[in-house]
Each structure stands twice: as structure tokens, then as C-alpha cells.
């Protein structure tokens, strides 16, 4: 996993978005009253499914769309009404949008020439960029003479060449195949960190967002559902939608029975949950208890104790190599997923289809969702 810089280092705000709304054709609300700040040096990810407004927000940052309402500030300056060619922001496009009629060298030099930079300075900068993305020997090739990964690096070099204050990445790895994606992800983060540019990236791939970004905003229907560091969003989702969107999750519907400062208990149709921390709620309140599949332990023996276990029948096994996901059908009819590490070479637990298995988990494995 890439170690992206975490947001806890105090930095000045570079980008500030204030109450931005975008309405298309007078009816469709693509972005709904979004506010956010991005600190210098941060990599900020907008994560969401298609049509959630993430791309529209990015395009407003780039200047291709104008907000219906709200302002956008970059380094304290209001850039809401600036056209794209006057913004100190560059974008790396999803399809790379390399100019097919220009060589790699000319593609990278394109933006610098528009700035009227002297020739020798341009050459120097382009060489530097080519070295940065390790494409020096491909300088004279045309885009179609490059592989997908190389094109992606040209696109990155081109968007970094002008030393933008803010770099926008639109699905940066979307056009690459899976294998190439992992290595490229690391390369990309390393290059971005080396240059030290602030980034806003858009992706629908939660893994991409988690590995690359220091903060993630989960978007849905034009608004932010949750903003936080990757581990926060994953381990402490604030709603069912977020919990469901980021990774796999089992959600038990239940009612709070005991509500103490240091713990709560929740009764659901399947079992009693003992949650080892206090929550803001009251007894009698309907809640969801979210439990990630990898936090469940499976065994053939019945666990002792009254809380945090349930029994079920193995109805499905999905083997992933490193781990196996078991689908357990509980007495209530609910199917939960449990993920077990395959830490021995013979298939662990000896569990198979039709077996009765006991799922148990500890008191810190769950998150109580009140919305």
C-alpha cells in the first residue's frame, strides 16, 4: 500500500470550495451545495459511483463548467469566473487526451509554449519532466506509438510541466488493466509527492482512492456523505450508504437495549451485539450494526458467551487465493459474509458447503449506524 501523507500535518488551505451547486438545464442537480478545503500538498479523492457529481465538481475546478451557485478560491483568490486557460490548475484526463499530431516532447512542451516561456527554458523543463516519468528515450514518438502505461505517464508529465498549483486527476488509472494499475498507482503517488503538488482526484474505485489519497470525500447524488482519511471512512462510516459503498459490510438491523457511556448492546433478529464503546443514541432506538467480513472469525465449535456470535449454514464459498469469503445463511434467513485468511495450504477450517459454522467477533469490530 502506498503511504500517502496523512492530513494531520497542519498546512495552509490551498483550495476552498464554498457552497458550490451546479444545476444542468434548470432541473438536474449534479452538485448540491458542496463545500470543501484542500490543504497544500494533500491528495484529495472524490469517490462515488457514476452520476454522483464527482466529475462535474472536478470540471468546475478546471473551469470547464461554471457553478450555478457558490465560489471557488485557489490560494485565497476567487477563480470561479476565470476561464480554464487562465487558471493555475492543470488536469490529467481520463483518456489522457494527448494530442495525436504532436510528439511526446511537443505534447509536454505545449502548455509551456502558450506561456511564452523562452525556448531553452522549455527544453530544460521538458527534459526534466521526461526524466521524471522515465520516458526520455521516447521523446520523439507520437502518442499512438506508446503503450497505455506510457501514454498515461506522458499525460502526467504534460499536466505537471506548467508547475500547476493544483493538479486534477480524472480517473487516473481507469484506462489501464488491473496488473499495470497497481504499479502505476505507486509510481503516480511517488511522482506527485516528489513534485509536491496538491491533487484532487476523481475515482469510482475505492481501492484507488484509499491507496492514493490522504483524504476521501464519498459523494452521492451531488453531495458529500462523508469526508475523512481512508481509515476513518472505512472503519468509522457515518451512514449505511458509506459503509456499503466502501468495501463489503454486513449490516444487522436492531434496537438499542442498553445505552451506557462505555458500551451499548443492540438486539437484532440474529443475535445480541455488545459494542465496546458509547454512541450518541438512546435505548429503544433503531440502529444498524455494521460489521466488516474480515472482522468475523469462523469456527466449528459453538462460542461461549451471550454476545457477538451467531450460527449459520455455509451456502457459498468464494476462493480468492489469499482469503476465502464464506456466505453464511443464518436462522433468520439473512446471509452474512465472512472473510477468512487462508493461512495454511490445506483449506482452513475444513468448512464446506452445507456445514454449520459459528461466526463470532469481538466488541470493537462493529460500528453502530444511526442513519
Amino acid at each position, binding site marked *: 500500500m502506498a503511504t500517502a501523507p496523512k492530513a494531520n500535518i497542519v498546512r495552509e488551505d490551498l483550495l476552498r470550495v464554498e457552497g458550490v451547486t451546479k444545476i444542468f438545464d434548470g432541473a438536474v442537480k449534479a452538485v448540491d451545495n458542496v463545500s470543501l478545503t484542500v490543504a497544500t500538498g494533500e491528495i484529495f479523492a472524490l469517490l462515488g459511483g457514476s452520476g454522483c457529481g464527482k466529475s462535474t465538481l472536478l470540471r468546475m475546478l478546471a473551469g470547464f463548467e461554471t457553478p450555478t451557485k457558490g465560489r471557488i478560491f485557489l490560494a485565497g483568490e476567487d477563480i470561479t469566473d476565470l476561464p480554464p486557460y487562465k487558471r493555475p490548475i492543470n488536469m490529467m*484526463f*481520463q483518456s489522457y487526451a494527448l494530442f495525436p499530431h504532436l510528439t511526446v516532447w511537443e505534447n509536454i512542451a505545449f502548455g509551456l509554449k502558450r506561456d511564452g516561456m523562452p525556448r531553452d527554458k522549455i527544453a530544460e523543463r521538458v527534459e526534466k519532466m521526461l526524466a521524471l516519468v522515465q520516458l526520455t528515450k521516447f521523446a520523439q514518438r507520437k502518442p499512438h506509438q506508446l503503450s497505455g502505461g506510457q501514454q498515461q505517464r506522458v499525460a502526467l508529465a504534460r499536466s505537471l510541466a506548467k508547475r500547476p498549483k493544483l493538479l486534477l486527476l480524472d480517473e487516473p488509472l481507469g484506462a489501464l488493466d488491473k496488473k499495470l494499475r497497481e504499479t502505476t498507482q505507486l509510481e503516480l503517488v511517488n511522482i506527485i509527492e516528489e513534485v509536491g503538488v496538491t491533487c484532487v482526484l476523481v475515482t469510482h474505485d475505492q481501492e484507488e482512492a484509499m491507496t492514493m489519497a490522504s483524504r476521501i470525500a464519498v459523494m452521492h447524488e451531488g453531495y458529500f456523505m462523508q469526508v475523512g482519511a481512508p481509515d476513518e471512512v472505512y472503519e468509522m462510516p457515518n451512514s449505511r450508504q458509506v459503509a456499503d459503498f466502501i468495501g463489503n459490510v454486513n449490516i444487522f438491523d436492531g434496537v438499542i437495549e442498553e445505552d451506557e457511556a462505555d458500551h451499548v448492546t443492540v438486539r437484532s433478529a440474529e443475535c445480541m451485539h455488545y459494542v465496546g464503546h458509547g454512541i450518541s443514541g438512546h435505548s429503544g432506538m433503531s440502529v444498524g450494526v455494521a460489521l466488516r467480513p474480515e472482522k468475523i472469525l469462523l469456527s466449528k465449535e459453538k462460542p461461549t458467551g451471550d454476545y457477538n456470535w451467531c450460527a449459520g449454514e455455509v451456502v457459498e464459498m468464494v476462493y480468492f487465493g489469499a482469503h476465502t469469503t464464506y456466505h453464511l445463511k443464518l436462522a433468520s434467513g439473512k446471509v452474512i459474509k465472512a472473510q477468512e485468511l487462508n493461512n495454511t495450504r490445506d483449506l482452513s477450517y475444513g468448512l464446506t458447503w452445507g456445514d454449520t459454522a459459528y461466526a463470532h467477533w469481538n466488541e470493537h469490530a462493529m460500528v453502530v449506524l444511526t442513519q
Partner: protein
Amino acid sequence: MKTPLKSSLRLSEKHATKSPVTMAVSPKMIKWFSQSWMLVVYVFLYMPIVTLVIFSFNDSQLAAVWSHASLRWYAALMKDNDLISAVLLSLKIAFLSALISVFFGTFTAFALNRYKRFQGRTLLSSMASTPLVMPDVIVGLSLLLMLVSLQHWLGYPERGLFTILLGHALLGTAYATVVVTSRLREMDSKLDEAAMDLGCQPFQVFRLVTLPLLVPALVSAFLLTFTLSFDDVVLSSFLSGPGYSTMPMVIFSRARLGLNPTINAVATVTITVVTIAVLASSFYTSRQERNRKREVAQAYSDMNK
């Protein structure tokens, strides 16, 4: 000969759905039929041209009677100043009108493609394609009426090169618009955005990105409008004035007076030039395409090394 063939086809179709065994005969028949059909079509299309070329080398005064081979009519063509000046005039008009058409066609296409909302957009888009469907006779006649009244009021323009050019450019612009529009439509609009993102003002985007990528479309639009103008007889007849006869007009008027084998000679020369041009351009594009495919394959195999 045709009746049994047809009935056997129908028979095989009927049987094909029921038992595949009888299919053994029919594909052969179908192949035979389609090949002879193709032959008939080719003969129908190219026989007149081949005949024309052969008869251009005929020594006889009569266009339809073969005596023996000679270059007599080519020699006559060399001395036929009327015809030569008509060819030169046609070339000149075709070249100029193609230039004008491509120029206006490109901007029309660009405006229609990139600007989705402006006053009179619908009007422009329908006006741009009207000449395509309007009969040439109507276009020619209405232009003539307009020009005659203009000349009546203003004393200008005299009918001649300029008026023919006007008519051809009008028609050509419509065609050029279609060609350029189709290319613009398939072009990635992200390229424009990328250019703007990198600091291009709108006109720079057009000059530095859109225009270079349009070159192939501009070339084909030029060739198309050139050909349209070169063989147009209707508009030219309406719009020309004394002393301005284009090649098709001369051929047409001579053909009406009785076939003169010189016409065969000039037609053969034209056909030869066109054939060479078409062959050269298709050879060039297919080689480009092959190179491109090879380079793409190369790029990916380089990576795997």
C-alpha cells in the same frame, strides 16, 4: 437461364430451414449467382468508359465505327484551343471553388459542431444542407435571377468566371460542411479541453489542435468539391457568360452537334489523370494505416520486453 436458377434458390431457402442436407448444393449456386451478378454490374458500369477509351484511339471520323488505331484525335486535341482553354478554365474554377468551399465549410461545420446554442443555429444548420437536396436546376435558376437583377441595379457582376465560381462555391460549401462535420463529430472533445487547460485561448485551440487534426477531412472535402465543380454542367450553364465555357459545357454542346472523337480523347485524358490520382491516394492512405498499426503493435511489444 434465369428461371431455373431463381427457383433453385427459392428451393434451397425453403429447405434450409427444414433439412440442412440439401444445403450442400445451394452455397455453390449462390456463389455462382453473386459472382455473375457482380460481373454484370461491372460491365454495366465500366463498359461505356472502356468503349470511350478504345474509341479515342480510333482513326475514323465517325465516333461509332472502328477503322484502325491512331493518335489522330489526340493530335487534334492539342490544336483544339477552345477545348484546351475550357479545360483550363474548369481546372481554375474547380480549384478556386474547392478552396472557397473548404474554407467556409470548415467554419460552418465548426460553428454547428462546437457551439450548441446561438441565435439562428437551426436556420444555419438547415441552410447549410439545403443545396445538397435542392435540384441544381433550381439553384442555378434562382442564382441567375438574382444575379441578373443585381446586374440590373448595380451594373455588377458581369456573368463569367466570378458567377460560376459563386454557384460552385455555394454547392461545394454544403458538401464540405458535411465532410468536415462528420470528422469533427468523431474527434475527441477532450482534446479541446486539454488544450484550453494548458493555456490555449479558444482561437488557439482551433489553430493548434482542431485544424491540424482536421487536415485529412479538409483534403477529402477539397477533392470532393473539386470534382463536383469540375464536372458540373447545370450551374455553369446558368451562370456563365460569353467567353466562359467550362469543359463539361463544351463537351455537352459538341455532343449535341454530333459526336466528335476529340471529345473521346479529352475524356480519356481526364479519366487517366483521375485514375492515377485515386490510385495514388488510396495507396498512400492504406500505407499510412499499415504503418500506424505496426507502430501501435510495436509500442506494446516494446513494453513487454
